[in-house]
């Protein structure tokens, strides 16, 4: 403990040096500006600025990229809240209640809670990272393909179970998302699936075009024709911040989101996406007023925002301690380290303590910088909504197109965005929840790979999913959730098949019940 604190002081000495502090500030600023642009998320921002870091020392490079990552995550929530356009998959859940709060004139509190929740989650998770990185990394090592498969199945079923609507409808959307994820080249056999001659689909259907289309474009289609969706008057300072009730309602979701996000973020995989979905579902189940979710519940912003920020820190555990990136962004950071001749892994702390502790300390600093930078901007962002909607939505459409096109420089992505927009419009009219589609799309490649790898490990023996303890427990929980959630449907089907209890539904003789 004493040694850890001494190391931390050493790290702060580095992080608070003027040059490193400057890179943290620049990273957060650039990250926020990039993240605010609809469709342009942290991955795009970090990729664009990676070459800039080549001339820097490793600590400054990682501090700069880390600042961009945090800043872009926060910036992505801004567009989610103000315009219902997620910057990336992790911001999808924030769209739901954050945007509803905007429609009710509470955009300022939503943005403020997102900033504060992210700060608290980021700070607490950094403390956890500091003390728990080595043992947690050991735990993450025990996760093989069967455990990964079970975790992903459990994640999908948790989301479906905790949805407010019918579980069958949520599972339908999740299955649809998983099927969309099957498009493209199969990683194990290189077979090109469902491409229909479009070469660009080789890498599959991207998450960004689908997310922007399903949420952002569908919102524009539904709202078209209204001049001002949100009545905005010049907000007073206290109206930009949450009131006492909202602070009280947000406290527990922030802490729960922090814990959930960190634990899920440690596990290699799309932790920051899963954590935001799970956090939203947990908050809805625990709330005394679950009917408020989807209509501007502040818990629906506080929980997911804290969870995805905490998972972002948790993702550094496998990256720094094991050299295992848990997603695209940590992979780029890993690349940046390797370009500078540093090999992350179990020896990093011993061989490059200045890098490890410098990064930890700069995360603290970055969180503070982000809060200081973004809280004053809340008023500015809210005033964007005063632009007449007839001008605002064409601008949003153009930004979304740029963001989506810039991912792969491909117009196929723009077509996918338009198609997803149409699908989202129709599905929302039919009262379907769109979030499971995104989760399914993100998880599909990992789900398939882990499933097939598991069978390769066991030479085709399916009992591998029952004999490994962690896998078996997670699958059992998943099965329980499925049966409990589908109970109304199963009961209905059983009643039909029991002779004489009810007339068959297809019969024209069925009497109308009041």
């Amino acid at each position: 403990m004493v040694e850890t604190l001494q190391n931390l002081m050493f790290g702060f000495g580095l992080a608070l040096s003027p040059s490193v502090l400057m890179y943290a500030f620049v990273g957060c600023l650039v990250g926020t500006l990039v993240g605010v642009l609809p469709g342009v998320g942290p991955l795009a921002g970090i990729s664009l600025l990676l070459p800039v870091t080549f001339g820097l020392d490793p600590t400054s490079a990682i501090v700069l990229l880390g600042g961009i990552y945090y800043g872009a995550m926060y910036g992505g929530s801004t567009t989610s809240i103000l315009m219902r356009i997620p910057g990336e998959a992790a911001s999808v859940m924030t769209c739901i209640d954050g945007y509803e709060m905007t429609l009710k004139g509470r955009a300022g509190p939503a943005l403020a809670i997102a900033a504060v929740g992210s700060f608290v989650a980021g700070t607490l998770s950094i403390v956890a990272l500091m003390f728990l990185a080595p043992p947690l990394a050991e735990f993450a090592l025990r996760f093989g393909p069967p455990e990964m498969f079970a975790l992903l199945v459990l994640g999908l079923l948790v989301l479906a179970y905790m949805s407010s609507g019918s579980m069958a409808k949520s599972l339908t959307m999740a299955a649809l998302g998983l099927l969309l994820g099957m498009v493209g080249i199969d990683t194990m056999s290189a077979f090109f699936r469902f491409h229909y001659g479009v070469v660009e689909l080789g890498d599959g259907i991207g998450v960004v075009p689908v997310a922007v289309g399903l949420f952002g474009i569908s919102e524009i289609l539904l709202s078209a024709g209204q001049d001002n969706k949100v009545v905005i008057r010049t907000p007073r300072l206290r109206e930009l911040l949450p009131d006492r009730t909202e602070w009280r309602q947000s406290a527990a979701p922030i802490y729960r989101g922090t814990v959930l996000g960190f634990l899920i973020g440690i596990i290699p995989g799309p932790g920051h996406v899963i954590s935001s979905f799970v956090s939203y579902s947990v908050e809805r189940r625990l709330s005394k007023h679950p009917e408020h979710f989807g209509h501007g519940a502040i818990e629906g912003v506080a929980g997911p925002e804290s969870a995805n920020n905490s998972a972002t820190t948790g993702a550094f555990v496998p990256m720094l301690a094991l050299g295992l990136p848990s997603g695209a962004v940590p992979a780029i950071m890993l690349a940046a380290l390797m370009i500078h001749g540093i090999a992350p892994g179990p020896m990093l702390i011993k061989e490059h303590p200045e890098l490890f502790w410098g990064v930890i300390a700069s995360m603290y600093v970055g969180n503070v910088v982000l809060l200081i930078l973004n809280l004053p901007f809340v008023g500015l962002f809210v005033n964007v909504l005063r632009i007449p909607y007839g001008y605002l939505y064409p601008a949003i459409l153009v930004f979304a197109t740029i963001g989506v096109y810039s991912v792969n420089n491909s117009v196929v992505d723009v077509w996918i965005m338009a198609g997803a927009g149409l699908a989202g419009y129709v599905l929302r009219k039919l009262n379907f929840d769109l979030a499971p589609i995104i989760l399914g799309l993100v998880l599909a490649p990992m789900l398939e790979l882990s499933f097939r790898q598991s069978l390769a490990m066991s030479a085709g023996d399916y009992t591998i999913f029952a004999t490994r303890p962690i896998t078996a427990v997670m699958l059992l929980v998943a099965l329980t959730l499925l049966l409990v959630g589908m109970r109304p449907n199963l009961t209905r089907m059983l009643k039909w098949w029991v002779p004489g209890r009810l007339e068959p539904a297809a019969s024209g003789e069925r009497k109308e019940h009041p």
Partner: protein
Amino acid sequence: MRELTVDRVAGILFTAFSLLVLWESHKIPFGTMAEPGPGALPVLLAFILLACSVAVFLGGRVGERLADVRWTEWRHAVAILGTCSFMALALERLGYRLTTLIALLVLVSIVERKGWLAGVVFATSFSLGTHYLFNTVLRVHLPQGPFGI
């Protein structure tokens, strides 16, 4: 004639989609149960989607009727989707600036009826301004049109 509910229609649509996926999947090697091939999981997921669609259909006996769903904004929606399609078609042929200018002009002046002057000013300044911000400052590659426009 029984009124169709929203869930019943959705159940039918997704059932049809899952059957289509099953049909298309027969072209992909299934492999074996011990060694699933690239076609195995699409087939499994299509069956799961089929089961869920049937469950949605069966559970849709009561609920909102399709006839009660309002599509009042459909004209605007068609115009916006048409503009999106135009942008996808024209982006790499006409270049970003010209494509955006035309798209914004159509949306602001024609669809939203803000007037031609407002439309031209808004479309021109926005397309040029965003091109400068993204292409020059942020170095996001945006396609150029004929004659470098």
